[in-house]
């Protein structure tokens, strides 16, 4: 994965996560179409996260980007309760384990 692409993906994930708290506060009041659209887009956002994790696993990331990735993964893990409440996809346990966020056990 190119450096620029990985950074763009991480930036997009940070942006989405930064809006989760506000979005959750109005989640129930949104039109169903807006929730459907957001879930679909969030699903794609997590695919981008997985793509960067894959590059990390293949040792194709520079160290500074790897550090950013782990930071983003920690933030994502912290938001798990919100993701559950909003019925949004959560980062995969395999991805988090690969980054050392979850223990192998």
């Amino acid at each position, binding site marked *: 994965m190119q450096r620029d692409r990985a950074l*763009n993906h991480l930036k997009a994930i940070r942006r989405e996560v930064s809006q989760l708290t506000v979005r959750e506060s109005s989640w129930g009041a949104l039109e169903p179409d807006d929730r459907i659209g957001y879930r679909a887009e969030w699903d794609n956002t997590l695919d981008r996260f997985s793509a960067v994790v894959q590059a990390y696993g293949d040792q194709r990331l520079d160290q500074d980007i790897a550090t950013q990735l782990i930071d983003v993964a920690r933030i994502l893990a912290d938001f798990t309760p919100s993701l559950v409440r909003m019925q949004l996809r959560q980062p995969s346990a395999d991805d988090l384990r690969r980054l050392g966020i979850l223990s192998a056990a």
Partner: protein
Amino acid sequence: MVARSPEEDRAFIDNLLRRLTTHQRALTRQEIRRLRQYFASRALPEQPTTRVLEKHGKHVEDDLQWPDDTTPDEYLVSLRDTILNPRGGIYLVEPEIELTWTIYFVGPVPYRWRGRHHGHSIVVLFNAERLLWITGFQAEAGEAYVDRQQGFWGHRTH
């Protein structure tokens, strides 16, 4: 070419989608053509609306999935092309959470619409009961993204 009123078109599509979601079968060639025509010409906005501008801002300007200079009108053109692309797929998702069906039109990303960080498929979502456009973006995982949505293919991508 048979001239039909918007009301006749809408009734045909409503009926078709109701039967399709009940029986979860593959679409016929004529049904595929009618669905593509309806969603491209009547359900997708003709001009940039607030929602179009919001999605353009997110997927074109922020995520750079489309070329940097893609305008909101061109973004709509790319979605319309995807809906009408005979090589594209049509997928319907069961209403597990929101209790309303969603229809996906899925197609390859033409070179013209490949931004610096493009995905591997363009997906265009509509509410299949209200027949309203929801969003359109480029899926990182391509067709695999659609495949795991726990719905069924009315027409598989070629």
